[in-house]
């Protein structure tokens, strides 16, 4: 479970994140929805520990997340997947497994399990230079899952992917949710968020402007679709902010 309370982050005069709070429970997919610059990536960066919050708390499975040890309970797929092109897919995944403290037969078992889970068996021992966008995403996701983390953060995971790969990813996320994994993912693809998320947190200007099940948000904003609700909530001048569910 990921609990975020009163997160603030400024870059100079710009408040990138301004008092963001939400809870992402185990066994659920929580979507962070927002336009570009809404604060999604900065929020995820603070949860992962690569961006230091100016204020606020982050708890991971009940403990403070700002420790190196707690990162073992987290798998993360940043917006740019950044895999090593001169290493094979298996070597990429193994390297991250080692950094998460795995070794020996246990490491190899976990690497093989991640390779199988993501359907990478046929290309696991090929260098990743020349991999398609979808193949690179799968390697990056396998790398994030190699240590079997109870919490998973994905930053716009479907960007640039073709339809079959998006479907594979959706199935995988549904399987992980069924196994009790806490999943937080950011996106601006409404269809994806509506289809997958149990809870949606909408960010605008670094603040939470709505939170709840997609249907609740649609009802609360009197909109027919999440798309419309998002547009109204993202533009604070157009309508008053719909208060998040507590």
């Amino acid at each position, binding site marked *: 479970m990921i609990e975020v309370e009163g997160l603030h982050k400024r*870059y100079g005069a710009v408040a990138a994140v301004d008092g963001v709070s939400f809870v992402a429970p185990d066994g659920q997919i929580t979507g962070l929805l927002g336009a570009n610059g809404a604060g999604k990536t900065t929020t995820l*960066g603070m949860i992962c520990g690569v961006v230091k919050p100016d204020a606020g708390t982050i708890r991971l499975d009940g403990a403070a997340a700002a420790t*190196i040890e707690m990162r073992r309970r987290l798998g*993360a*797929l940043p917006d740019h997947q950044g895999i090593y092109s*001169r*290493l094979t897919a298996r070597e990429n995944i193994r*390297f991250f497994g*080692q*950094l998460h403290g795995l070794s020996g037969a246990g490491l190899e078992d976990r690497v093989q399990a991640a390779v199988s889970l993501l359907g990478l068996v046929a290309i696991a021992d090929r260098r990743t230079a020349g991999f398609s966008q979808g193949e690179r995403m799968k390697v990056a996701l396998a790398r994030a899952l190699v240590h079997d983390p109870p919490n998973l953060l994905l930053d716009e995971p479907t960007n640039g992917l073709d339809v079959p790969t998006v479907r594979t990813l959706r199935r995988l996320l549904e399987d992980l949710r069924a196994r009790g994994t806490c999943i937080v993912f950011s996106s601006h693809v409404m269809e994806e968020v509506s289809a997958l998320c149990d809870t949606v947190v909408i960010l605008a200007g670094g603040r939470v402007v709505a939170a709840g099940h997609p249907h609740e948000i649609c009802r609360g904003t009197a909109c027919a679709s999440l798309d419309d609700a998002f547009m109204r909530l993202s533009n604070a001048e157009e309508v008053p902010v719909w208060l998040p569910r507590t």
Partner: protein
Amino acid sequence: MAAAHVIIARKEIVDHLRDRRSLASTAAYALMGPAIVMLVSLSPEGQDKEMPVIMLGMMSVFALVSTFVGGMNIAIDVMSGERERRSLVPLLMTPVTPRDVVIGKWMAASIFGLGALGLNVAGLVIVLALGAPATLVTHAALLASWAILGLGPLTLLGASLEILVAGLSRTMKEAGTSLTLVLFAPMIIGMFMVFFPVPDGWWSVVPIVGQQIVIDAGLRGGPAVSLPVVVLGLVTAGCAWVPLAAAERVLSRDDLAA
């Protein structure tokens, strides 16, 4: 289970060994000095009475520069290259500290730096043994011992400076430009001291200056090992921690993930 910095160093070494163009370029730079000295020694002017002195000066500068050559490409690749390819952020999201990351990458850069130094010194020793005037041959063993004690630690310092400068650069192109300027430090100091030798003094334990003094002294038949060389080695290796600490701060900055 290996420590995080060892895991990172091992990965960087395996990764960089597959970059054949970079390895070829490093080897070419490391062997450029011996090749030039060989050509000079084979030329008719190479038999001139004054030529051994000039060749000694050339060798010392080439050896000095080689300490900065070997770690340069890998430092660019593992710091600014990773930043440009956005693979640094996923690495920092794992349970490792920025210190682990910096030390791991520095260890890898140092190993390639030491490899280039070894190649350079081996090349110079072979050139001396094969084709140089007889007066220089006796200095070959001394050159090797000075290299280990004086130049080895300078390689560690060079690698740490390269890791810092590459870490401060946003792109590989920017890092390449900045590191070319770093490479000028041993070149200019070395060349200056060839033409304006300085006497022994406290500066003989100052990195780069000290190395130039001891290589020059060694090539001219000085003692193989002496206390100032050991002190110089320790001071130089100790100085390597300063850029590493600064690089650690660079990797702790928020803008890497922004």
